[in-house]
């Protein structure tokens, strides 16, 4: 039995990195649910689009030789902004084409449309990459500095890329918090989420605010895609399925529609997954190995939802006019 503090710290680090990744993706699910009360199941593809935009820029820079001369921090910023912009616009376009015409239809209809859009986007990315590169499995070129290890003491070495994920996620969450809570547009998003008709009567252009919500949620997903690529290197058009499902779970766990809840849900899920992957085998004397990490994480999810059906920070998303 090995419960050394060093390994425990390492596991926590992995869990936090995974958790922030889930949190960034979960924001897209939860914000869209907030304004439309519907799950955008194509959001995992918005995330993948961000990852591919990052990969294409990095590969382009590498083949032109510019990658060696540019400052890595600059390169990372460019990747993040490009990933956010393209994913944000893709999410906006998705809403316009696949969801807005179905506004007012029974709730199952846009859901089916979302699943269709998800398949379409997966194969669209696959088609484009196949034509362009003859393969749709891409590997992020290595940025040497990100692979450097930082020692945390007790023999724990953590690569810089883990800190990049955490720092970027924290900065984006802070930015999102300020945007949603302190700006006029952010207040409009919250108003539309609470009562769209009343918001319209206040002069808020509801459709434009919904577009904006998709853009912001998509941009968060795009940034997560770039971070995913930088951290785990290998991507393909179907890479969004796992993280997307986990992030959706995280959003439900935290209380769907609730922004802080999405962050909390992501972190809880990421930590549970990492802890299960490392300790399930030890604790059960080998009966359940690391491959049961998802079973464990989802079992905890089910337990939490039995006792708190609206999630950890959940509340009623839309009040009736009363």
């Amino acid at each position: 039995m090995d419960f050394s503090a060093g390994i425990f710290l390492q596991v926590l680090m992995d869990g936090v990195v995974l958790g922030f990744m889930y949190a960034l993706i979960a924001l897209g699910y939860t914000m869209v649910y907030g304004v439309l009360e519907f799950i955008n199941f194509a959001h995992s593809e918005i995330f993948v689009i961000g990852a591919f935009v990052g990969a294409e820029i990095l590969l382009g820079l590498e083949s032109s030789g510019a990658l060696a001369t540019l400052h890595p921090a600059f390169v990372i910023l460019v990747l993040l902004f490009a990933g956010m912009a393209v994913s944000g616009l893709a999410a906006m376009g998705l809403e316009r084409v696949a969801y807005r015409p179905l506004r007012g239809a029974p709730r199952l209809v846009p859901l089916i449309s979302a699943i269709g859009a998800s398949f379409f986007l997966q194969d669209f990315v696959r088609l484009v990459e196949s034509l362009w590169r003859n393969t749709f499995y891409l590997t992020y070129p290595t940025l040497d500095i990100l692979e450097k290890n930082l020692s945390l003491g007790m023999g724990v070495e953590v690569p810089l890329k883990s800190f990049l994920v955490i720092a970027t996620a924290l900065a984006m969450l802070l930015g999102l918090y300020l945007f949603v809570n302190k700006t006029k547009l952010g207040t409009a998003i919250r108003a539309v989420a609470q009562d769209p008709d009343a918001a319209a009567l206040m002069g808020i252009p509801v459709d434009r605010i919904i577009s904006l919500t998709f853009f912001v949620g998509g941009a968060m997903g795009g940034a997560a895609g770039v971070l995913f690529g930088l951290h785990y290197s290998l991507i393909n058009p179907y890479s969004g399925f796992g993280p997307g499902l986990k992030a959706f779970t995280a959003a439900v766990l935290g209380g769907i529609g609730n922004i802080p809840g999405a962050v909390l849900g992501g972190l809880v899920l990421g930590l549970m997954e990492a802890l299960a992957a490392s300790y399930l085998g030890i604790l059960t004397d080998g009966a359940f190995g690391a491959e049961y990490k998802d079973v464990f994480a989802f079992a905890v999810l089910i337990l939490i939802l039995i006792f708190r059906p609206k999630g950890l920070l959940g509340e009623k998303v839309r009040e009736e006019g009363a």
Partner: protein
Amino acid sequence: MLKVEELHVYYDAIHALKGLSFTVAQGEMVTLLGANGAGKSTTLKTISALLKPRSGRIELEGQSLEGLEPHEIVRLGVAHVPEGRRIFPRLSVIENLRTGAYSRRGSTIGNDLDRVFTLFPRLKERMRQSAGTLSGGEQQMLAIGRGLMARPRLLLLDEPSMGLAPILVEQIFATIQEINREGVTILLVEQNAAMALAICHRGYVLETGAIILEGKADELTGNDLVRQAYLGG
């Protein structure tokens, strides 16, 4: 100021407004009376474009409102304080008021906040509280205050007395009168016909989607039908 002509509105197969026509002049305070389901709220919702009419015309100062979205109608100077208050419960009082001024920009918004706080001092005390924690009367004050933040020239009020204690109703109605005296034209929908007729200049009586009676407030107050149906004999 407002002219509604031959308005027909349907909820799916239900014919809710059957050729409604009425007018509200600049500076006037007019009330729409009628029982539940007569079409009063439907009329207001159609004016502010939450509902689309099947046919008919709505004109604001000679301009047709056809095809406009709700937020565009607010920009033309029409504020609608909806039935049931519909404040944003998880926004603070001050945030609620600011959403009312959404379509405006510039520095005069602060003056209007002051004006709302003068009309409703309670709101100032509770500025940072989330609106859902207010009492019913305070929520109604907030709903009206939020409507005023749009600087409307025409204010549509839907059942401002609903669910309020009589003393609060008097207070709210006194404030509505004050707002009208400041030059805001008012179209008031009320179940409390006695109160509405006491402060309004004119009134229309609706029954199942059509106007059956119209006149000056004191004429309606004296009308036998109105007395029996809406003023409790």
